[in-house]
């Protein structure tokens, strides 16, 4: 079987020029795939496959009926081919020998190998001790590590499907509380057909002893991935959560419409980091993932904190605005982002900071790098509601252009309805300074090393917010992406 993978890899390398997109291979594995198309039966089938209780199905159906009434949004600063929602497989699960593997050791070898190749070791001997991983393959979670250890602290870390069955009260209470299914077109679609994702619950006064992470892999063709993640941090708890994702190289666009909800109660802190490296299409802009994601956190309690850190380096189109609703007094929202676009990629990303509570604070640092024919937009909203006395926001968005066919845009919306608020926004667009380049090159660095050094400096504010191993990966990713685009 593993020969199969190897062959595919060879083929892929030939197709793409080795090293261009390391994760572009496809795993040949039998799939359980109901037919394409979307209607109430699809929703029922997904719910049935997951053995969900009645209330979950009802919720999905409500979302689906609402979705039918909605129009696809047309306001973004880019165009994408019409998506035929009837031409997508909404559920695709790798067939396993056992219907439900009791432990990770029983998971299909092929799947374990796939994750091994992606650098995510799931088996007991190899896995990193510091990070618990939930591995999601197409529509299902194939396994979650360190569950036992986490349970000692009362932490629940499992796939969404398990949570719906094992912890219905929590799911029922919080699902849709931050991103209701009426929120937007893609959130409604996700609410109707979401297949899997991760669920984390950190009880009171617990500081999560290790980083939690989810790795998302799209494998099957013509599928859409609709995962849903829900993280709840009870009073005075802390969790750091990481997310990574890849997909095989294909000529057609695949839709990834996820929803992530974070809830932080009194004095709780959630740190959410993403390194997004979906397949971004080839040099001519063919193929790639449409990454249309709704991510939102709610600082529901006093002094709660939510921070989003993202490195957006993949996807044909990235369209997401991780947001924070600052409801509790003194709560803090942070957003750090690096969006790198090359070839024909498009990124329309930013954040929304909604200040409701008194003395709420938010910080936005966004860095966009655009090269080749790419379009990179920052679109953000800072909204100070009349109740948010003493709210404070600082935003900084810098863009860098490499080449003369790309573009960088900034659309910051600032809405202030309280006169005690202090809001600052600054943005700049520039290119790599010729003098800096000359300085570095006169010290013996070659062109690419010099560019990489400058870019790293440009993104440092964001990278330093990432957990260590992610930070290293992000730097490498950036270097690889920019290879050959400067000259």
């Amino acid at each position, binding site marked *: 079987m593993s020969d199969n993978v190897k062959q595919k890899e060879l083929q892929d390398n030939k197709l793409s020029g080795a090293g261009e997109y390391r994760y572009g291979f496809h795993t040949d594995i039998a799939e359980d795939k109901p037919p394409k198309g979307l209607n109430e039966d699809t929703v029922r089938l997904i719910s049935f496959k997951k053995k969900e209780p009645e209330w979950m199905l009802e919720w999905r159906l409500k979302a689906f009926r609402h979705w039918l009434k909605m129009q696809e949004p047309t*306001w973004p600063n880019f165009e994408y081919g019409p998506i035929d929602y009837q031409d997508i497989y909404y559920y695709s699960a790798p067939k396993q020998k056992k219907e439900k593997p009791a432990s990770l050791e029983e998971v299909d070898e092929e799947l374990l190998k796939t994750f091994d190749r992606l650098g995510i070791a799931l088996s007991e001997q190899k896995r990193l001790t510091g990070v618990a991983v939930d591995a999601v393959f197409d529509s299902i979670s194939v396994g979650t590590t360190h569950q036992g250890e986490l349970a000692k602290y009362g932490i629940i870390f499992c796939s969404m499907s398990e949570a719906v069955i094992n912890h219905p009260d929590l799911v029922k209470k919080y699902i849709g509380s931050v991103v209701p299914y009426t929120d937007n077109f893609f959130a409604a679609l996700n609410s109707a057909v979401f297949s899997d994702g991760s669920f984390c619950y950190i009880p009171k006064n617990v500081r999560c002893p290790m980083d939690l992470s989810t790795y998302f892999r799209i494998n099957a063709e013509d599928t859409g991935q609709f995962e849903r993640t829900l993280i709840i941090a009870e009073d005075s708890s802390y969790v750091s959560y990481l997310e990574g994702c890849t997909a095989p190289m294909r000529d057609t666009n695949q839709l990834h419409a996820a929803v992530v909800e974070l809830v932080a109660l009194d004095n709780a802190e959630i740190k959410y980091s993403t390194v997004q490296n979906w397949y971004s299409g080839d040099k001519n802009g063919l193929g790639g993932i449409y990454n249309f994601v709704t991510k939102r956190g709610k600082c529901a309690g006093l002094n709660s904190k939510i921070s989003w850190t993202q490195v957006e380096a993949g996807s044909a189109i990235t369209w997401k605005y991780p947001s924070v609703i600052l409801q509790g007094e003194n709560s803090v929202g942070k957003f750090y982002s690096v969006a790198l676009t090359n070839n024909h990629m498009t990124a329309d990303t930013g954040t929304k900071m909604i200040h409701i509570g008194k003395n709420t604070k938010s910080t936005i640092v966004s860095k966009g790098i655009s090269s080749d024919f790419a379009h990179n937009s920052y679109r953000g909203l800072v909204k100070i509601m009349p109740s948010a006395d003493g709210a404070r926001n600082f935003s900084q968005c810098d*863009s860098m*252009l*490499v*080449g*003369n*066919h*790309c*573009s*960088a*845009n*900034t*659309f*910051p*919306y*600032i*809405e*202030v*309805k309280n*006169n*005690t*608020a*202090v*809001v*600052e*926004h*600054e*943005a*700049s*667009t*520039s*290119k790599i300074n010729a003098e800096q380049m000359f300085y570095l090159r006169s010290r013996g660095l070659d062109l690419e090393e010099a560019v990489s050094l400058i870019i790293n400096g440009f993104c440092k504010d964001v990278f330093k917010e990432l957990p260590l191993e992610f930070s290293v990966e992000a730097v490498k990713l950036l270097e690889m992406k920019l290879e050959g685009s400067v000259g």
Partner: protein
Amino acid sequence: MMTQQQTPLDIEGLQEYRSKLENNCGAWLKAFRHLNFDQWVQVGIPKPKDEEWKYTPLADVVMRRYQLALRHQLIEDKQFKNYRSEGDINIVLVNGVLWAELSDLKHLPHGLVVSSLNEALAHNNAEIQETISKITPNDAKAFLWMNQALFLDGVYIQVASNAVIEPLVHIIHVTSGIEANTVVFPRAFISVAEAARVNILESHLGFEPVSYLSVALTDVRVAENADVGYCKVQSESHQAVHIGTTRIWQGKASSLDSFSFNNGGALIRNNLSVLIKGERTNTVMNGLYAIDGNQHVDNHTLLDIQHPNCTGYQLYKGLLNDSSRAVFNGKIYVHAIAQNTDAYQLNKHLLLGSQAHVDTKPQLEIFADDVKCTHGATIGQLSEEEIFYLQSRCIPKHTAIRLLSRGFIDDIISTVKNNSIRGKLSRLLLKKFPEVKL
């Protein structure tokens, strides 16, 4: 009786007004008015869903039934006389019609031509025809078309090449002697030829406490190497709605120093577009709005840079009292060819009123890589420490606040180079800042 065509705004006697307009103009203008009218009817009044009008609802504007100005007479002239200065070349338009007796048209300096716009159009002026037929990328198209279809008259100003006009050219649009809910269409066309230099002030005034809608349109052509100072003062009556569009075309190596001042009106929308049509231009777009009560001021600006080696600087400041609302949307668009652009945009607000709202969106769209573009926006209050410092020097708190906010404003007023304009702006601000007495 002709059947009444459904128009976006309900205007009494529109049909007769249009027939009268069309009977009095040449074939080109007649066709042009027709075309614009049809476009206006087709597009209608922007809805709140329209991104460009998101923060400025027009529901109140649409609801009313309007009249057309029938008399063109200056009723209240004391304040008007106080406002105009003797040293300037004053050009007065009452309800959109050029008023020769109140204007200084007799002894114009060499190189300056002033006439009514209808007169200029009657001579089939190719430059005007070509310019006004263009559509600019900035929004407010509905009101642009409305003005072009229905303007009664306007003023045409031409500065000959190499002419240097020393005195300030002051265009004064006064709305006066009207019934409630009258709609007026102030119109100006300014053409500055190669290497000419001129300072122009355009004031929109209304002294009577009556509600009206002013749909204004000004076109400015700045030819190669010309140097133009252009200031728009909007100090309409406190019940007025003013929706103004200003389009400026800048030729190669020309300079534009523009300023937009707003302190009047109930609902104000300014659309200012500067289109760069040649290399090595310099553009300054500054502005100030000092508002109170329930005033709503919306400034939409566009700097469209289509050529290399240009600079553009923009600073807009807003002082908001009571429950006033300000909207700012500044766009700098740098085309791929416009290398070496140096552009800077800043929007600062001082919120004094407890109910004051600000919605700001400074926007950069950049397609060229060798550029230096920055923008920023700030919203804040006076610092407690500064007030305390002044109080500790025996200055009462309210005086301290007034002093500090006056300082916030003076910073931008001082960027206006022309003395006569600066004097007028200071006088207009007196209403909001009575002399500071210690």
